[in-house]
């Protein structure tokens, strides 16, 4: 096998590791990985890490998974162990050190009495075991034996399974330099003894180098490509290798990257309700050039197309407003007063985020914090915990809608534009702090649509600390929903309000 093929295998192994670690590497990227490996080699791990990171990990959320996969395959401790092994006692023996022949003889007497152990006696002749141990073996299963370097020949009998239970002979060698069954070695080559373990990439590469697939079935000469069966076996071996490596390095997918995991971890009813809302939602209209459409005349394009007809504008191009993609900003209250519905709120935000084209999520108690990344990185309950554990989020603070609106308008002004619909989830209670309805009004002017989901029925709005009635005047729509079922009920209303 050429070393180029070995690189293929390494690239494939790395790809599998990446996927196990939650980095979605495409086949095209693995080809790139293969090219990078060929170009840089693995001598400079720092450069290799940077290069492979550029090739595979393209999202911030994939960086950690990439690092773990890289450490698992190319990491320092692996390297240390490999070099430590190499510097240990020499492991190369001459071929003469091991038996090269496995004889299977046909004619053999049946065991003569019940406790007579045929094999123990036979094998015993090869070893200088004390006589007391011969002929009687109380533990029939414990008859493993090992062959030392002095034994050239090893014979066992095929008819010897005359014990009460069947006896199976297994010859385990670390590495035989022949792949023909019945031969342990076919040529005089130095045999490298030692474990072929998954954490020893050097020896695997050496093995891959030494491995000659055309030898596997007798001596069919000529360099051939792998047959399908061989390929399947190799693939299987690589798969096993990767799994072993992954389990050793404690590699597992991040809680939630793939869609399947995500969908599973989301509670289905909230997800369904959000889907209903988003399905009916339309983005802000945006002028697109259309021939003979509605809207204003597009002078530039009309003049352009009239040039074909000698300046006579036969074709009028209009700037027709067509709905654009949905852009959403979710402002979610996570303060203690709405803690019972916080989970619902964040699930809603998460589901919206997963479904909408462009969606930003800000959580707030007294000031808004962008938690889009945190929601994206993890899934399920972890996401909620991750959001609530955000360093910038002061959960003990008293909720302050006025300040929140203030900061959204100044510090996060880039999130607001005339094509974004804003959805606020919260109870509108600022505990006596100024509600700053004027700021909400200013916000309403800057965005496409504004809707509010509150968990409290409107009979509680009139209480002193609740500014909901004032906020409601500004909003396009206020929905009362404290769980997914109620949200699904109002999905159409909400969607119409937001589009």
């Amino acid at each position: 096998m050429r070393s180029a093929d070995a690189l293929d295998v390494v690239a494939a192994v790395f790809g599998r590791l990446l996927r196990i670690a939650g980095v979605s590497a495409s086949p095209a990227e693995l080809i790139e990985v293969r090219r990078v490996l060929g170009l840089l080699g693995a001598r400079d791990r720092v450069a290799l890490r940077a290069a492979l990171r550029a090739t595979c990990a393209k999202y911030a959320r994939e960086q950690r998974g990439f690092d773990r996969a890289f450490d698992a395959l190319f990491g320092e401790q692996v390297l240390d162990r490999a070099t430590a092994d190499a510097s240990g006692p020499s492991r190369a023996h001459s071929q003469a050190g091991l038996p090269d022949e496995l004889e299977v003889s046909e004619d053999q007497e049946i065991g003569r009495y019940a406790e007579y152990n045929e094999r123990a006696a036979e094998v015993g002749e090869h070893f200088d075991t004390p006589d007391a141990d011969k002929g009687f073996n109380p533990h029939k299963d414990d008859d493993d034996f090992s062959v030392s370097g002095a034994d050239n020949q090893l014979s066992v009998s095929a008819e010897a399974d005359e014990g009460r239970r069947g006896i199976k002979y297994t010859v385990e060698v670390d590495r035989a330099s022949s792949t023909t069954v019945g031969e342990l070695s076919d040529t005089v080559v130095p045999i490298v003894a030692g474990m072929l373990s998954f954490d020893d990439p050097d020896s695997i590469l050496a093995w891959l180098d030494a491995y000659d697939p055309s030898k596997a079935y007798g001596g069919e000469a000529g360099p051939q490509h792998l047959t399908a069966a061989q390929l399947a076996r190799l693939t299987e071996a690589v798969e096993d290798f990767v799994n072993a490596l992954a389990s050793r390095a404690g590699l597992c997918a991040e809680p939630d990257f793939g869609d399947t995991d995500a969908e599973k971890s989301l509670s289905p009813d909230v997800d369904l309700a959000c889907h209903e809302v988003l399905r009916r939602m339309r983005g802000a209209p945006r002028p697109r050039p259309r021939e003979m459409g509605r809207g204003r005349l597009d002078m530039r394009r009309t003049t352009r197309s009239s040039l074909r007809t000698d300046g006579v504008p036969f074709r009028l191009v209009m700037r027709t407003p067509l709905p654009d993609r949905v852009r959403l900003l979710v402002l979610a209250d996570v303060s203690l007063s709405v803690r019972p519905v916080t989970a619902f709120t964040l699930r809603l935000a998460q589901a919206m985020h997963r479904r909408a084209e462009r969606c930003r999520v800000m959580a707030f108690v007294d000031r808004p914090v962008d938690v889009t990344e945190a929601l994206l990185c993890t899934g399920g309950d972890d996401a909620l915990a991750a959001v609530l554990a955000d360093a910038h989020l002061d959960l003990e603070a008293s909720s302050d809608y006025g300040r929140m609106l203030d900061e959204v308008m100044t510090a996060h002004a880039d999130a607001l534009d005339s094509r974004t619909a804003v959805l606020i989830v919260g109870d509108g209670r600022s505990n006596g702090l100024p509600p700053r309805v004027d700021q909400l009004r200013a916000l309403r002017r800057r965005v496409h649509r504004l809707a509010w989901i509150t968990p409290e029925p409107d009979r509680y709005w009139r209480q002193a600390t609740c500014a909901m009635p004032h906020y409601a005047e500004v909003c396009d729509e206020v929905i009362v929903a404290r769980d997914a079922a109620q949200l699904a009920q109002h999905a159409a209303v909400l969607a119409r309000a937001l589009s």
Partner: protein
Amino acid sequence: MTAAQVLFNRNGFDGSADLAAALREQDYIADDDLATVVHLATALDRPLLLEGPAGVGKTELAKSLAAAGGRRLVRLQCYEGLDDNRVLYEWDYAKQLLHVQMLRDRITAATADIDDLDEASRYLAGRDFGLYSEAFLSVRPLLDAVLSDEPVVLLIDEVDRTEEAMEALLLEVLAERQVTIPEIGTFVARSVPWVILTSNDTRELSSALKRRCLHYHLDYPTPERERDIVAVRAPAVEDEVVADVVDLARTLREFPLRKSPSISEVVDAARAATILRRDGARDAAATRAILLSTLLKFSSDRDVALERLADPVPAPAPGPSQPSERVTVASHPANTTTAAFRGRGGGGRR
């Protein structure tokens, strides 16, 4: 041109160290990772997508790379509403019209002996006047990069400002390095351009685009590297001034600002500090106030910075170090929330 020119061979650079040295010649200081990735992009002929906040030297890298590689820089500045007429090509109608006008006499002469109008029309339709040929194309950046005989560096700047439709248009150019013009056919790149895309991360790019590119996240440099950069860009500035300004910028970047000071702003501030010092020593507070105005561009940012700088231990403001200080029930809110949802999905994880 320079020594970099001599080192340069037509196919690219010998290694990342070579590339870093060549960029250094152009006053661009790249750290090891960036040099490796850029070298890889040139060696593998892959487009390189640079993401990061504004003002960390993404565009500058493309310019320096072009200069270091001795290539022409073709720049496509993206903006909202950019359409394919301005990205790929446009037919030069005026020139085509003029061409037909000039040929009019010859056409009249050629059709003089045909009496029948239909036949004359058929005759002309069968003729090729070469109106749809490369000569009548107004070449826009992408086609320019593809058609160029000499190798170029194609810079697609701020690709996140365009719509998704434009990204789709880029895919053909980036992956196949070809441009299809319906009237003529498909142009395949005559030389392999080095493509650099930059994005300010204002929106997520489509994964189709990301997957076709090498990706590198360019962040604010380490203080040492930033000092080097400022020293190279503003050679007149003394070292201690540079150190002061870089230190101030690093402090500011830790504050929750709308826009953190970029490298170019730090260079400006260093120049400003030199001038202030030359004009005569003023008190430190006044100097700092002026420096802040070169580093910060929003009044709210300025307020935050002044407040924090005046009060060295920011007491109530939420900082990254806070959660460790707070030991209350509310600092572990996960318990209540997860408890509320136990048994309702997400239970597969151990």
